[in-house]
């Protein structure tokens, strides 16, 4: 078993463990933290399998954009009289300790691959598919799929704007009715 196989198994173990913690946790923000760790370990696995472009997209889009949207909505929903107390409770180190330990293991794997893994050993996978090939495939045979996904994203944008606008307007009117 080579070192990169070990890296794969450690990352797979972290992915399964953090996903189990994410779906069984009672506190939504902590579950989101565990799910972000699961996405990071999936990104490590993508890199080991020889897909560096998908690995970077996993971190940027999934962990960066989608999970931040989740966190933003959770913090919006929790507005209330006890929110300051809750904020104070979230600043304790104890909540983030589990995800931090798992992320530190992933960071150790990154350091291992960067400093000890790559130069003597062969590349992570037999074939590395880089972003150039993905781009050529996207705008060659799959250009209809690109157009369809752009249409889907536009539909999602309009739908989210419509639903969000209505909910904000109703909240404002409720607040006005409450003050009068």
């Amino acid at each position, binding site marked *: 078993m080579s070192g990169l196989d070990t890296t794969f198994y450690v990352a797979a173990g972290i992915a399964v463990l953090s996903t189990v913690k994410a779906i069984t946790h009672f506190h939504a923000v902590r579950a989101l933290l565990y799910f972000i760790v699961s996405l990071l370990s999936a990104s490590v696995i993508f890199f080991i399998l020889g897909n560096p472009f998908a690995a970077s*997209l996993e971190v940027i889009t999934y962990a960066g954009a989608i999970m931040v949207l989740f966190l933003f909505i959770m913090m919006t929903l929790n507005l209330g009289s006890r929110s300051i107390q809750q904020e104070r409770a979230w600043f304790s180190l104890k909540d983030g300790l589990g995800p931090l330990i798992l992320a530190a293991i992933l960071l150790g794997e990154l350091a291992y691959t960067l400093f000890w893994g790559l130069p003597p050993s062969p590349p992570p996978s037999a074939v590395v598919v880089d972003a150039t090939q993905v781009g050529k495939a*996207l705008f060659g045979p799959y250009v209809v799929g690109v157009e369809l996904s752009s249409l889907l994203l536009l539909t999602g944008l309009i739908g989210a704007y419509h639903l969000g606008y209505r909910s904000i307007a109703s909240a404002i009117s409720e607040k006005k009715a409450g003050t009068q």
Partner: protein
Amino acid sequence: MNGVPLEQSLLLAGILFILGLMGVLIRRDIVFILLSIEIMLNASGLAFIAAGSHWGTADGQVFYLFILAVAATEVSVGLALVLRMFHRFKTLDADAYSRMRG
């Protein structure tokens, strides 16, 4: 082929998908249900990536990009619906939404 065997990557994707399915079934908080759907989409993307790297083609990553677009759209519309539901029912419990008629 000195990489990781395809079976083990697919096994990991299957385990993650079943965990997401269990999350949909056992949780009643609607944010957790959305999160579990994200877990399932991510697991299917992992299966595509594993198969694509096994055959050495870019098709796996192309389909991963499509899954990413679907996940982003689903989350934005789903969270907007969650906001509306929370403003109407003042709860995140999915069972409470069964009072909705029509």
